[in-house]
């Protein structure tokens, strides 16, 4: 707490570094944009795939979703959008949840939810693709 006195040897940058609400630098901001850019073509591709699957029976859906190219696009879409959603929800929590304990709890819930959703979706596609 003596950082603010003129006698401190700490630089102005050193005093503010890691003090943001996330206690990280701009990595989250950058990854949010990176996944946003990736999500544009991936989302369009997934919409195209889903339209092609509409009204088809289970056997046809399994065959198409499990085919190599479709499965790879679906996997890329899921990884990129789940990461994007996790980062986005973290920003929302940090903006609105001010109580430190509740913030911790909701941030943990956000991570657990995102990992569970992501792994479940990835597992489902791999299972369809490998035909187990």
């Amino acid at each position, binding site marked *: 707490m003596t950082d603010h006195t003129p006698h401190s040897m700490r630089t102005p940058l050193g005093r503010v570094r890691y003090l943001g609400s996330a206690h990280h630098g701009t990595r989250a901001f950058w990854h949010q*944009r990176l996944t*946003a*850019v990736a*999500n*544009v073509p991936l*989302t369009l591709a997934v*919409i195209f795939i889903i*339209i*092609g699957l*509409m*009204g088809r029976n*289970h*056997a046809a*859906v*399994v065959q198409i*979703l499990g085919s190599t190219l479709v499965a790879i696009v*679906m996997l890329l879409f*899921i990884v990129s*959008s*789940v990461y994007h*959603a996790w980062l*986005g*929800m973290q920003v*929302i929590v940090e903006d609105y949840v001010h109580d430190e304990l509740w913030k911790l709890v909701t941030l943990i819930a956000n991570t657990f939810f995102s990992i569970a*959703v992501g792994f*479940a*979706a990835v*597992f*489902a*596609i791999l*299972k*369809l693709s490998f035909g187990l």
Partner: protein
Amino acid sequence: MAEAKASRLKQRPLSPHLQIYKPLLTMMMSIVHRITGGALYFGMLLLVWWLIAAAAGPNAYAVVQWFMETLLGRLILFGYTWALIHHMLGGIKHLIWDLGYGFGPVEREWLTVATLIGSVGFTILIWIVGYLVMGGIR
């Protein structure tokens, strides 16, 4: 600790919050961007349900297909489609702004109007194509 910290800080005026500003389209769409993002976050459950059902077998998949064809299912899917497209177009607008373009008084307005018209237009287009693929409304 908290008291010591508070007494050392000067009482400074706080910046005014949202309620004092006139609601502008760019601001409303910024809020909608966050709301659609939150909706899509929980909407991921729908995608995962569909994928797990497809991986689980014909019976589980039949349940998903039945739900998606109910009126509630279709409404949720239609809302999901719009939220996805609107969030995508709003995201592209934010990427343009991140690069420093489109901040002029005219550009920022038409960019924002374009995301709204575009999202509604594309959503309807996707559903028309979807129904055509399925061979008409059923």
